[in-house]
């Protein structure tokens, strides 16, 4: 798909903006804190109605405003020319697709893939398992409502069991009641994560090889806390762990403790990878995510690159761009425009939440 027009109102620091995109390469430039990332955040919101950097949608609404709106027109492989409008209020969101109100997220998910390449992505390799699980959940749920449903069931049943454990004094029957909901949802998550990561890992391996020298293969692996996706076995394990969980006042084991492992040449990238290898791994992960979205949805994702290119050495940057299909729309941000050798970009200057196309000083440089 290709975004043709993006319209923001009261979104973060953007009071009102309309951007007309021509072609498939857009570059937004400006000092930090002016609104470049906000625009990518709005475009990325299309995919699963989630922000790539905020968990609370209230943060997206401009200060003192009751409602924020994102409206866009796009060319779409399956739907043709499509118009999507999202309204965000402190207590919820409204969604329209071609003037029709969408009330079920399941009817919407998987249609509008975008992938954000962020400078924060390095934390996916270096940071805590929670960040990797969040990435995996967002990736799988963005394409599949059944994954989202299993995740929501698991999360709610886990919260129920944990609050029984926290308060203490719950009977075995009460704990069991929530375990019997928890176990099948856990098995479902493990099955879907195993399959999803297997597919993503194959693409990551290929993407990493494009970015780096051959002979140092990069890999992604699912590291489940408990690998056997059987509801009966999981239920027995929850029952068996009750005494320990009562002591810890929390459910100690389960898919909420799953992790992803990145490695280069078979060694854990978190501990042994160089910074360059770690950066290449997260780029490869995002490329894998894009390829997976395309296979799953039949729609070419829009790539949103938030200030990631400046941090790469020239050789890796060239390889990164070589790995990206000319047919893919890329909306990128940075403090200075991309090298002329990377082709023609539509340039926007961003200052204080406003966007100016073809700023005169930029043209002089290009």
């Amino acid at each position, binding site marked *: 798909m290709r975004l043709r027009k993006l319209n923001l109102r009261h979104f973060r620091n953007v009071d009102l903006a309309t951007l007309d995109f021509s072609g498939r390469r857009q570059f937004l430039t400006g000092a930090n804190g002016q609104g470049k990332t906000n625009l990518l955040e709005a475009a990325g919101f299309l995919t699963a109605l989630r922000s790539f950097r905020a968990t609370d949608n209230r943060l997206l609404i401009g200060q003192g405003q009751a409602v924020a709106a994102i409206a866009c027109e796009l060319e779409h492989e399956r739907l043709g020319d499509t118009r999507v409008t999202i309204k965000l209020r402190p207590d919820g969101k409204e969604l329209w697709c071609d003037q029709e109100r969408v009330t079920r997220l399941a009817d919407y998910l998987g249609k509008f893939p975008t992938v954000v390449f962020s400078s924060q992505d390095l934390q996916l390799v270096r940071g805590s398992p929670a960040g990797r699980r969040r990435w995996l959940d967002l990736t799988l749920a963005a394409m599949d409502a059944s994954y989202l449903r299993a995740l929501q069931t698991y999360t*709610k*049943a886990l919260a*129920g069991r944990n609050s029984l454990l926290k308060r203490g004094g*719950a*009977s075995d029957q009460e704990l069991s*009641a*929530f375990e019997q909901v928890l176990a099948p949802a856990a098995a479902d998550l493990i099955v879907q994560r195993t399959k999803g990561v297997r597919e993503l890992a194959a693409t990551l391996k290929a993407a990493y090889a494009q970015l780096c020298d051959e002979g140092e293969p990069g890999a992604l692996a699912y590291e489940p806390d408990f690998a056997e996706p059987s509801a009966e076995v999981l239920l027995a394990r929850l029952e068996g762990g009750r005494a320990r969980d009562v002591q810890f006042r929390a459910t100690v084991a389960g898919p909420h403790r799953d992790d992803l492992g990145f490695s280069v040449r078979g060694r854990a990238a978190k501990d042994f990878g160089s910074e360059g290898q770690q950066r290449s791994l997260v780029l490869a992960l995002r490329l894998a995510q894009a390829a997976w979205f395309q296979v799953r949805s039949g729609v070419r994702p829009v790539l949103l690159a938030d200030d990631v290119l400046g941090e790469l050495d020239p050789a890796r940057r060239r390889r990164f761009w070589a790995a990206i299909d000319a047919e893919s729309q890329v909306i990128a941000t940075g403090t200075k425009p991309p090298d002329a050798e990377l082709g023609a970009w539509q340039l926007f200057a961003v200052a204080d939440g406003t966007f100016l196309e073809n700023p005169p000083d930029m043209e002089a440089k290009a």
Partner: protein
Amino acid sequence: MTPAFEKLQKQLKQLPGLGYRSSERIALHLLVEKPGQLPVLVEALQQAALAVKRCPRCGNLAEGGLCAICADERRDAGVVCVVEHVPDLVAVERSAAFRGVYHVLHGKLSPINGVGPDDLNLKSLLARLATGEVRELILALSNDVEGEATCHYLTQHLPADRAVKITRIGFGLPSGGGVLYADSVTLKSALEGRRDYS
């Protein structure tokens, strides 16, 4: 407006489905347009507050003794449909597909909100099961995590020496939705297509 008027309007606005405008309209209607209705309404409210209690057998609304459904001898007391709230009972009744009786739990297990088994109308259900007259239990609880957990909890408390058939309706109900939100046709087919549960 006056302080007393505002107090009335504020109270009305607490009622389900009433916003600021509609509560104001009702207050004006009662006080200005049809003041004659007011004493009748006040009396009806007082009487209802005094008279309407929970049915000692099933938890449905009743006045002094069994509710109209429990007292109806044509209903099959061997088939008990367990619901969360009285409005759910009303919804199943409206489907006209059910000739058994009910049990209203007045909630579902919700540890996050501090609702445990003792906060539900459970003991009287277990007492009913112990009498042996219940052949089938239809669990018509909401199709979400807490509704499911409540069903699992219930099934663990069935007397082991009695053969009680347990069925669950959830078919056709919107996922995550309560029984109340299902229309009569959906509920009817859900009742007819209920699946075994245990």
